[in-house]
């Protein structure tokens, strides 16, 4: 693939989803929740309902457009939380070192050894379903990679003279960590965070699929897939389109992440 294509394709997909999410009320032809009408239940895709209707006669396209809001919001918010936690821990562990580093590393290994979704499931079971618990459950369980990467980056950067010279000029540890080091290690972190949005969207869909995420009748892609399960044989479009949306969103963030890596990594510039 041509260099930069990842970036544009990924960015294009994300932009499209973002536009749908932001302008959902203008784009969706029907209301995603109250338009239920059993007269039109399980209509195949056609002129009236572009992508068909579900078992309650609600327009799938409208529900998908509104579902994009949830997916995008959860994906971004969760990743902001994960990145904030991971980077703060990794940055301080790498810079301060000693017992703090040992402790953070132990915690990171612990987090890595438990599958994120299992951990999130356990947390959701305690917190109960809902948007806030979803944010907490996903936002605090997937920071191990950004933590590892920021720590490793700090270790290579902190021996460089500019860090030493900032200390020599009397700047405190917080200044050195966030003003000197953070901007210089931001490249790889942006890549990890971007790809993480895809996994966060996937995790949200999984939890909603299991009935622990967004509470019905609010539309979410995972929830739509879950209720489509039973009609998979008679009305496959109920499952196919939200599935495709999910696929496109995750693919979009992964391509964007790949593209950003090629863009930000100076070593990759000469490579094909």
């Amino acid at each position, binding site marked *: 693939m041509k260099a930069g294509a990842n970036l544009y394709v990924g960015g294009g997909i994300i932009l499209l989803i973002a536009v749908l999410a932001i302008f959902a009320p203008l784009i969706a032809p029907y209301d995603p929740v109250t338009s239920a009408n059993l007269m039109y239940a399980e209509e195949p895709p056609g002129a009236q309902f572009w992508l068909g209707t579900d078992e309650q006669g609600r327009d799938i396209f409208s529900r998908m457009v509104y579902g994009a809001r949830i997916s995008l919001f959860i994906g971004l918010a969760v990743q902001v939380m994960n990145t904030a936690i991971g980077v703060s821990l990794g940055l301080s562990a790498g810079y301060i070192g*000693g017992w703090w580093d040992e402790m953070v590393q132990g915690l990171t290994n612990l987090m890595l050894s438990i599958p994120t979704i299992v951990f999130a499931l356990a947390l959701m079971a305690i917190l109960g379903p809902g948007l806030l618990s979803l944010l907490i459950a996903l936002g605090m369980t997937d920071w191990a990679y950004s933590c590892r990467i920021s720590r490793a980056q700090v270790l290579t950067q902190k021996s460089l003279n500019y860090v030493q010279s900032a200390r*020599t*000029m*009397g*700047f405190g540890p917080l200044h050195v960590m966030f003003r000197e080091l953070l901007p*210089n290690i931001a490249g790889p972190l942006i890549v990890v965070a971007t790809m993480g949005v895809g996994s966060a969207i996937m995790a949200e869909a999984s939890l909603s699929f299991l009935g622990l995420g967004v509470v019905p009748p609010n539309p979410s892609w995972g929830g739509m897939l879950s209720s489509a399960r039973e009609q998979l044989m008679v009305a496959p479009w109920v499952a196919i389109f939200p599935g495709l949306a999910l696929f496109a969103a995750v693919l979009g963030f992964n391509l964007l992440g790949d593209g950003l890596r090629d863009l930000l990594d100076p070593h990759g510039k000469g490579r094909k």
Partner: protein
Amino acid sequence: MTETVLDVRDLAISLCDGPTPVAAVEGVNFSINRGEVFGLVGESGCGKSLCALALAGLLKAPMAISGGQILLEGRDLATLPPREMRHLRGNKVSMIFQEPMTALNPLMTVGDQIGEMFVLHRGLTARAARMKAIEALEQVQVSSPERRINAYPHQLSGGMRQRVMIAIALACDPALLIADEPTTALDVTIQAEIVELVLDLCRARGTAVMMISHDLGLVARICNRVAVMYAGQIVEQRSAGDIFTAPAHPYTRGLVDALPRLGRRLERGQERLTEIGGVVPAIRDFPQGCRFAPRCGRVTPECRAAPVSMTDLNKGGRVRCLHHV
């Protein structure tokens, strides 16, 4: 009247990673007066840079100050709490490094990096700090400072970057500037300019300079007094003129003899430069007696028996040798 800025007394720095601490630097005594340029010379690994880091309070584990005092304008830096030490750094003690290529943050404009000093230590606003930064760039003779202030380090040459470093280091009028081999990484033509610049600015401000170098020629030319370090100890401390015309310690003599000088080969009829045989012993293998004994031409059994202390020379200065010239 001369006013002492820095007084280092019996400084010892130890490597504390084993069961017993090992002294990497010990018995270091020197003082620097206001406006004076003091040279610290020695080969790699002799403890020069450790001394510099100790002065700036930046020794990292496993290295730690294990004894002695570092009096800067009367305050002992060796026992100062980290918070107060941080306040002094950049404010009273500043440092310039040998690598101007990496000593600046690559993602900040030089103006911001100079300006930060005024914001941190003088409490100026960003706008006022910017004006001061332009002024500071002007003082280090950077042309069109109003424009250069928005440049990033990669847009500047090595000499320019070192000028920016000097501007940062001298921004808050420190009492002491530690220059750790400031010209090693620069072109020969620029070296002289940079050294002259540092000296001019420091002379004008009365800043004491501690010049760390292994360039004896440079030290001879610009320093008032010089201390020569070997294996963690000062072995000779004299006025700069004396140390090169009449070195007292065999090690200093070796260093001076190893210098190429125009016309000297003809004068002495020798074919090649004299070198000092052997290498500096590792920290854990320092000899019992005189540390230079294994490499010394004048060694006698009593040199190896017990540690040698500093003695005063008749012609001024001090030397750590039983058989000095």
